[in-house]
Each structure stands twice: as C-alpha cells, then as structure tokens.
C-alpha cells in the first residue's frame, strides 16, 4: 500500500524531489491565470467597486485555513492510531502554514471590511471563530516549541489537535448563537451559488491556486522538518560519542 511505502523518510524525500518541481510550476501557472482573471477579466461589483477583488485572496485563504486544520486532524489521527512516522511531521509543518493562511484571511477581511462596513473589525460570528482558530494554531505551535522531544511533542499536539477538531464545530455553533452580522455563505449553498459566474470562475481558479500553494509549502516544510530531525539525531549521536557512558540513555533512534 502506497500509504505505508512512504512511511520511510528517505523514500518520501525522493518522492518530494520528483513531485515538487512539477507542483511548483503548476502552482505558478494557475496563480498567474487566477490573478489575471481576478484583476483584469472579472468585472467590478456595481456596489463595491474594485474592492470586490479582495475576495479573490480573502475567500481562498479562509477556505485554506479550514482545510489545513482538517489535514492536521487527519495527520494527528495518523499519529495516534496508525503511528505513521510521517504523520506528526505533516501535522507539525502544517500548523505554521495554517496560521499564516488564517492571518491572511483576517487581514484581507479587515481591509475589505473598512470600506464596506466602515470598520476594520466587528465582533461578528465568522470573524470571531476565525480569530479563535488563529489562537488555536498559535497555541499548537507553542506546544510544539515547549517540548524538546519531537516524538512526545507530536503526540501531545495530536491529542490537542483532535480535541480542537471536535470543539471547532461547537465553537462555530456557539459563536453563531452569540452574534451574527456577516453575510451568510454565498458559494456553498444548496440552491447554487449566488455569485455571478464572471466572478465565480476567477474565485474557483484562485482556490485551486491556493490549494496548490499549500501543498507546495507543506511538502517543502515536511522535507525541512525531516532534515532537521536528522541533524538533531546526528548531533545527539556526536554528543554521546564525545561523552560515552553519561549520555548512553539518550542515544535512542530518533528516526
């Protein structure tokens, strides 16, 4: 099964080397098409003018911050249930990317909110739940940084990620109860999207571009994390060779 073949970090790195250039090229092309469509082809909104183009960055970033958390939750399941050796690498390297996309969604959203709603920030349901998601990303990253053993840190973070995944719908529901001012969802609706197709197509292309960007950065970050762990293992081996006897207990196989 392919899933297990790439449990070996070396084989995974070889796969990354093959896939990454193609993926990067594809990502650049789709981005170019998406940005061209978004900035030159898509019409201006009759009410919002050119500011509607913020949507082509804002909406994909908001989608991505959800998708990234889902990937982290799946990876955490991989860590805890199947003990897949790359799962916690995947979860760890996804967290900063997710935080970055969440931050991007928050910043572009508040830049869009200033001309439209007259204020940078409102305590509305969607904004608040994205802010909570941002805090959870940062908390997870902090948890990883506070433990020096990557295996233990990965397991602790996996537990927290899964608890967060169970809690996110509850948080979403309760924040909706608390207050709502934001427009309801306008793309993912049962009766078809309410956006005109001239704006929907650029949005769709940009969403694909952002997804590709996520995977490019994620693969790069996973590669870096594997290499970082190898460096750590080599350093520990060197340290235990320099002081034999005292450090014998720490010379465990890290990878």
């Amino acid at each position, binding site marked *: 099964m392919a899933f297990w073949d790439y449990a070996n970090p070396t084989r995974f790195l070889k796969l990354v080397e093959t896939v990454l250039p193609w993926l990067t090229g594809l990502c650049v092309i789709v981005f170019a098409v998406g940005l061209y469509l978004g900035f030159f082809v898509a019409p201006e909104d009759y009410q919002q003018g050119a500011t509607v183009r913020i949507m082509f960055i804002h909406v994909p970033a908001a989608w991505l911050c959800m998708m990234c958390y889902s990937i982290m939750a799946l990876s955490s399941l991989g860590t*805890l249930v199947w003990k897949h050796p790359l799962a916690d690498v995947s979860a760890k390297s996804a967290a900063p990317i997710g935080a970055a996309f969440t931050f991007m969604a928050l910043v572009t959203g508040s830049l869009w909110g200033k001309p439209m709603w007259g204020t940078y920030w409102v305590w509305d349901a969607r904004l608040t739940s994205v802010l*909570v998601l941002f*805090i*959870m990303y*940062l*908390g997870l990253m*902090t*948890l990883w940084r*506070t*433990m020096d053993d990557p295996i*233990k840190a990965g*397991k*602790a973070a996996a*537990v*927290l990620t*899964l*608890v*967060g995944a*169970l*809690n996110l719908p*509850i*948080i979403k*529901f*309760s*924040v909706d*109860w*608390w207050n709502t001012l934001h427009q309801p969802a306008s793309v993912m609706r049962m009766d078809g999207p309410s956006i005109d197709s001239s704006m929907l197509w650029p949005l769709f292309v940009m969403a694909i571009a952002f997804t590709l960007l996520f995977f490019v950065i994620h693969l790069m970050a996973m590669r870096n994390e594997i290499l970082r762990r190898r460096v750590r293992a080599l350093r520990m081996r060197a340290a235990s060779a320099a002081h034999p006897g005292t450090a014998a207990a720490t010379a465990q196989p890290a990878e």
Partner: protein
Amino acid sequence: MNGWAMTLFRRDISLSVRIGGSALVGVLFFLAVVTVIPFGVGPDLNLLARIGPAILWIGALLATLLGLDRLFQADREDGTLDLMLMAGRPLEVVVLVKCLAHWVATGLPLVVAAPLLGIFLNLDPVSMAAVTATLLVGTPALTLIGAIGASLTVSLRRGGLLLAVLVIPLAIPVMIFGVSSADAAIHDPMPFMTPFLILCALTLISAVIGPVASAIALRFAGD
C-alpha cells in the same frame, strides 16, 4: 462509587484543603478580580449590573485556570502519577475522579462565593440566582476541559501560562452559553432554559471528551 475511587477522591480533597493545598486561593483571586473591575470600568452601578454576569463568569474562568496547573503536576513530581498509571484502573475514571475532587475543592467555593460577589456588582436577586445556577452547571465543564490542558503540559516546568492559552479557546462555548443564559434570566423575552440546557449538554460532553483526551495525553507523558 467503588472503594478505590472514593479513596482517591478523599485523598485529593484532603490534599487540597490542608497546608500546601491551594483550594481557597481561587476564591480570593475571584474576589480580587471582581474588585478590580469597577476600577477599570468606573463605579456606575447600572453598568455593573448589566455586565455583572459576564464579570462573574470571566472571574470564575480565570480562577479555574489559575488552579489547574497543579491538577496532575503535584502527583507527577512525587511519583503518584506513575503509580496511578500502573495501577491497572481505568485511567479515564481516575482523571474523572480527580477532576471531581478538584472541582469540589476549587470550583464549588467559586459558586458559593458568586451570590456574595453579586451584591458588589448590584445584581438583582433573579440574576444572582441565574448566575449562580449557570456557574454551578458550567464550572465543572471548565475543570474538565482544563484537565486536557493540564495533562498536556504536565511535563513542562512552567506550563501554567501555556495551559491558559490552550484551554481558553476550548472554553469559549461554555462562556458564551453561561453568560447568555444568565442574561436571558434578566431580559424577559428570551427563554432562560434554552441556553441553560445547552450549557448542561456542554458540561456532559466535556465530561466525556475531557477524561478520555487527558488520559491519552497522560499515558504519553508517562513513558
């Protein structure tokens, strides 16, 4: 309740109320937080009556967070936690009993103190009763959710601050429904029972998620 669970419960209670325990510090902290709020927002009694339930809830949340970092850490330091892990009892039940004891020692005093602090905030009797009821139902959820954070940070030397950061996002739903049901009791058109029952449901959910997740985390922290 089984014999061993009762023994564990009694042990945790007596450890937290005797010298070296921190059961009543939480109530003092609660009092200090409520005292400091009028200095921040001004001594307007009408304003205080309006935001009173929220102040009491925030105070209770902070006081709960303050006591949580010792939930498992003291046991880990003297090796009791390892014995509990090896004892062959279901760890989830151990965690649940420990949370219950921790709540009785730290959360229940907050609930008892809430009506008294309500007087300072110019709450009328109805909203005082409502806040006390919501705190009685909601603070166990805070302890149980906090147990997850406590077990994740158990091996860290200075885990208290990180614990608060990890737990606060998860505690937001409890906070929202606690405050909104207390508010609903004051403002007539909204029903009190709807948010109150959701708050009860949240407590029950966290009674499942909290012990299971923190037992998993403790097993990983143990080895």
